[in-house]
């Protein structure tokens, strides 16, 4: 049985998120894009409406909403500004790893505080020389009695400048590669934790990214997340869950690109008629529309599988790769439809194009997604 109807509550939350995006995000998106500042005000308002950290289970003070609920909200936010969407939903990755792998004690210590104030949690795995190759991280961990000592530098860490808590991945022995990694809950206030300068980026400039430096940081053993040396699994499992979220950001951007291009093509006249009457433009709009529809369905499907407790690694990778490619393509074409006006800052499409690019890179590049898809395919034959 296939049913594309949203529940009445989902319809309401879409409406609310859409209104929020229109009134609270869209008007300030150019400012944050220009200044590259952290959108604290938007974060505060989103928090007050309960739009942040929707997946925290109710026993820890959250709403315990599903991934499908979340991707519906994310599409609306990203249609207004993917950078702000990344900031507001950045907690999902770090917090979902606590929800999934944390002990009861860790959940009680860390989850409720995120329901009480708009705190920020960051997922710190990437290093300068280890992006897609998680097994290549060199941030080290040594156990001394009841304490783990972390040393190393993390790079491209989303929301790091504002983060209160980090999930840090470190290796016991680099030669063990994927099998030597553990994950830790690291508080910003621990001695030896510092955050470097914000890294200037092409797009999603409302989402600050920085280096995190760990200099002899002592982490109590009670903050080891999951089992020792299970970090690689924790990372992949957590990232699987946020791939549909990134896919939804792609859907939001693709949607805005199409809407903007469609509206413009009906208004802009050349050779005595709206350019939308030319087939060259129509084909672009049609391509955008078909990719958008497919991207949304793939995203919903991956999220739905996750909510149903079904395996969704492959579907999440498919949705993420397809939807973010669709966003890139649609935004580039939206610029093309706008001609020279598409290239200037007074029109919104150049920002969409800059913002879309990062979606193809984060949560695993789209090349990595294809490897994941292929691995899942091959495994299904071998098993």
């Amino acid at each position, binding site marked *: 049985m296939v049913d594309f109807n949203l529940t009445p509550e989902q319809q309401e939350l879409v409406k609310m998120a859409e209104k*929020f995006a229109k009134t609270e995000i869209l008007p300030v998106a150019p400012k944050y894009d220009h200044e590259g500042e952290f959108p604290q005000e938007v974060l505060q308002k989103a928090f007050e409406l309960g739009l942040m950290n929707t997946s925290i289970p109710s026993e820890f003070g959250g709403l315990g909403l599903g991934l499908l609920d979340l991707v519906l909200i994310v599409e609306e936010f990203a249609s207004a500004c993917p950078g702000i969407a990344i900031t507001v939903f950045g907690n999902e990755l770090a917090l979902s790893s606590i929800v999934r792998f944390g002990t009861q004690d860790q959940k009680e210590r860390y989850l409720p505080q995120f329901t009480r104030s708009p705190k920020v949690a960051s997922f710190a795995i990437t290093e300068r020389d280890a992006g897609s190759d998680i097994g290549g991280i060199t941030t080290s961990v040594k156990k001394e009695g009841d304490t783990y000592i972390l040393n190393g530098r993390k790079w491209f860490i989303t929301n790091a400048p504002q983060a209160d808590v980090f999930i840090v991945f470190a290796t016991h022995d680099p030669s063990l590669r994927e099998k030597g990694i553990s994950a830790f809950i690291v508080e910003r206030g621990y001695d030896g934790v510092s955050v470097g300068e914000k890294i200037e980026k092409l797009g999603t400039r409302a989402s600050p990214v920085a280096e995190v430096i760990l200099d002899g940081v002592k982490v109590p053993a009670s903050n080891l997340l999951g089992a020792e040396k299970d970090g690689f699994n924790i990372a992949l499992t957590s990232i699987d869950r946020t791939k549909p979220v990134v896919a939804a950001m792609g859907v939001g951007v693709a949607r805005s690109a199409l809407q903007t291009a469609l509206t413009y093509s009906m208004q802009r006249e050349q050779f005595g008629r709206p350019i939308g009457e030319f087939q060259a433009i129509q084909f672009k709009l049609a391509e955008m529309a078909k990719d958008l529809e497919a991207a949304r369905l793939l995203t919903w499907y991956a999220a739905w599988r996750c909510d149903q407790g079904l395996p969704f690694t492959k579907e999440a990778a498919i949705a993420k790769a397809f939807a973010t490619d669709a966003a890139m393509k649609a935004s580039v074409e939206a610029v093309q439809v706008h001609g020279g006006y598409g290239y200037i800052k007074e029109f919104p499409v150049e920002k969409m194009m800059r913002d879309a690019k990062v979606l193809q890179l984060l949560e695993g590049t789209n090349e990595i997604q294809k490897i994941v898809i292929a691995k899942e395919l091959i495994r299904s034959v071998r098993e």
Partner: protein
Amino acid sequence: MVDILVCIKFVPDTTAIVRPRADGRGIDTSGIKFSISPYDEFAIEEALLLRDGLKGGKVTVITAGPPRSEEGLRTALAMGADSAIFVKDPALENADPGYESKVLAQVIKGLKFDLIFMGKQAIDDDAAQVPQFLSVHLNLPCVTMARKIEVSPDMKSIKVTRLIEGGEEVHQSALPMVVAFGKTEHTPRLPTLPNIMKAKTKPITVMTLGQLGVSPPPASRIISMVSPPPRKGVKLAEGDTPEAKVDNLIRMLREEAKLF
């Protein structure tokens, strides 16, 4: 404790592009986004603020309309209303204000209440008649174009500030009464996510026209509806101050030109 009834109408959204139906007797509703009429949203907001300010009471939203109107009630419940009453009947599509008010009056006659709030007019047909008709049916005072309200501590009377040409007028009345709001000082809230989830458990009482036994009074009916001719050329962003002009311009670019 205060019991407030809020009558709302679910109308095409301000951003929807509305076209007449082929038979010219109404609008083509297919694919159109609907919302609670904006002045009704102000009425809901005022009711919620009054209830919460008095630390007690109940806000009941009421609508009489075609089946899709239920969505408007759900939004009002998510905003914080306590319960809803839905007179659900396809025959209420394009109901004449006379009929609409008679139906609402019939529902309200069976209820306990201190105040009836609503928007001064729905933005689809802009008839601006239901509050007045309703107050006549219920034999209650009515103040329209309300901008501000103040209920006395003993809950016996209410002061309503009314916007008039070039100024304000303050009315005082005993409760119960009908207050029809224009734009007020309080921007209608967005529902919070927890309230959206909570709304699931709030009751919506559904009634039919048959159950209410209200027959349509003599009424006008729409015999034709046409789109205005397409406008071309210059459009001025008007306003009293430069700031207001810019606000208006941005609104026009967003809502009319749909540039962003």
